[in-house]
């Protein structure tokens, strides 16, 4: 259940992706996510999938480990799909009870499921291959230009890295507290929805108290080291682009170009308009 959330975890191994500069990976992830939202046609999605599979192979993270991340959000995906199926208007395909199901709805639902899956796997690749500290450095440098708009980039990057750092700890803690309450006869699995929510209180309360306590300790520890935010801080390991990064950027440009041309010219290919033959709106 909660263990299945792989988003935000780091997988310690060595690979092409692990060695890349975090900035390269952040920009790569952003480009990838954007391309997912540009077009809705099968060619673009197949190409995006191929690219994703290639990246997973290049990351040395077991495929099973990535898929596991999807199980955690299966509920959200199913809900999104259902909402789309029932709410998007169009040519009626069939009826479920008195609800008409439109071709367009099914189409959007199918794309949504793929889009969400690629989105989750794509962004977990970033965190799985980048240790939190490097990730923060990368974020801070990538978005440093926003400082001219008075955006507190350093503070935001710091907050994010703390949040990422705490995800595995809180998951571990939830597991332990759940087990401790189970051994006191708690039951999280039976009864009505309301009863189940209520049965989670003995887990949530200690979890929150622990989290606040940790936050306090962390603040004290930072204060004791005279942490003052990003003002005039130097870096122990400054970020530097290497050969692999330039290769990665070249690949990224090619990928984006391929997606855009596929998106524009797909309509001349068989089924390019759509699987269900409705055509993109």
């Amino acid at each position, binding site marked *: 259940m909660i263990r299945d959330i792989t988003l935000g975890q780091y*997988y*310690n*191994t060595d690979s092409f992706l692990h060695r890349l500069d975090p900035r390269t990976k952040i920009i790569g992830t952003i480009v990838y996510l954007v391309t997912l939202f540009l077009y809705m046609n099968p060619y673009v999605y197949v190409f995006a999938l191929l690219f994703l599979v290639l990246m997973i192979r290049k990351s040395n993270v*077991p495929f*099973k*480990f990535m898929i*596991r991340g999807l199980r955690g959000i299966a509920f959200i995906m199913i809900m999104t799909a259902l909402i789309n199926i029932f709410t998007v208007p169009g040519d009626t395909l069939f009826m479920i009870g008195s609800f008409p199901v439109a071709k367009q709805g099914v189409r959007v639902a199918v794309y949504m499921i793929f889009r969400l899956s690629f989105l989750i796997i794509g962004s977990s690749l970033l965190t799985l291959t980048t240790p939190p500290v490097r990730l923060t450095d990368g974020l801070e440098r990538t978005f440093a230009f926003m400082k001219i708009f008075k955006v507190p980039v350093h503070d935001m990057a710091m907050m994010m890295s703390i949040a990422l750092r705490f995800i595995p700890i809180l998951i571990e*803690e939830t597991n*332990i*507290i759940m*087990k*401790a*309450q*189970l*051994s*006191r*006869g*708690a*039951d999280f699995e039976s009864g009505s929805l309301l009863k189940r929510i209520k049965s989670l*209180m*003995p887990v949530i*309360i*200690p979890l929150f*108290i*622990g989290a606040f306590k940790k936050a306090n300790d962390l603040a004290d520890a930072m204060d004791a080291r005279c942490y003052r935010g990003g003002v005039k801080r130097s870096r122990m390991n400054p970020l530097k682009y290497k050969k692999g990064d330039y290769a990665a950027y070249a690949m990224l440009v090619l990928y984006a170009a391929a997606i855009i041309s596929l998106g524009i010219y797909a309509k001349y290919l068989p089924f390019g308009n759509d699987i269900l033959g409705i055509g993109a709106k």
Partner: protein
Amino acid sequence: MKIIINHVTVEYDKNLPNYSKALDDISLIINEGDFLGIAGHTGSGKSTLIQLMNGLIKPSKGNVYFEGEDIFEKRYDRKTLRGKVGLLFQYPEYQLFAETVFEDVCFGPLNIGFDRKAAELSAYDALKSVGMPDDLFYQSPFNMSGGQMRRAALAGILAMKPEVLILDEPTAGLDPGAQQSILGIIKKLHEEKKITIVLVSHNMDDIAEYTDRMIVLNKGRKVLDGLTKDVFMEKDILKEAGLSVPQVTELCGMLNKKGFPINQDLIRYEDVKRELLNILK
């Protein structure tokens, strides 16, 4: 024979980078009235072994029996089992959640089917037996000292009237006074209420002082099992498992090396003291 663990192997997720067997072909019999110690280095499988005993972790291979019944059989009532085999987790104060200590202690018995009155009586008894002062009964558990919180958590398990009580490092993180008082309570429960005790610890002095029988785990395997005083004579195996002998036994050994004629097979503080006084008389 209260609990039988028969050739049990436990494997966690094989997809993780640092995969290994948590328990490897372990067999163990716990008899009624035992005061059993489980010793082992961090990561030796102690916690896994005790979670197996009250059905929180499923074995990959092998069976666990409680009073002759397989606890992982489909129809087996594990909730009742958790009442009979009470498990106090490490740092149990983090599982407290209710508004008052008394309410928190009632949580377990109410879960396993005590009616309100029986649960309250049992909670009262349990709080008395851990020496909780009356005026703290209706206080918030979060305003108490670490030692008091630990007592409250112990009472929460005792209120379910367990026949077997498993304690995972019950003294970790407490000051010496509180440590002795918790161990004193446990000893009293064993002697007066005839509760079978399983004490997990990596403090060899505590194990020597309180247990009659002990097992030693190393890398998921059981390497020693026998009377506590016999196990502590196996210095080489203990060393290999990353453990030592009790301090007083170490002292006897050192004295002997220097030519002081003292018995080397003593493990308890009082025994060594008596022996020393006898010789020096």
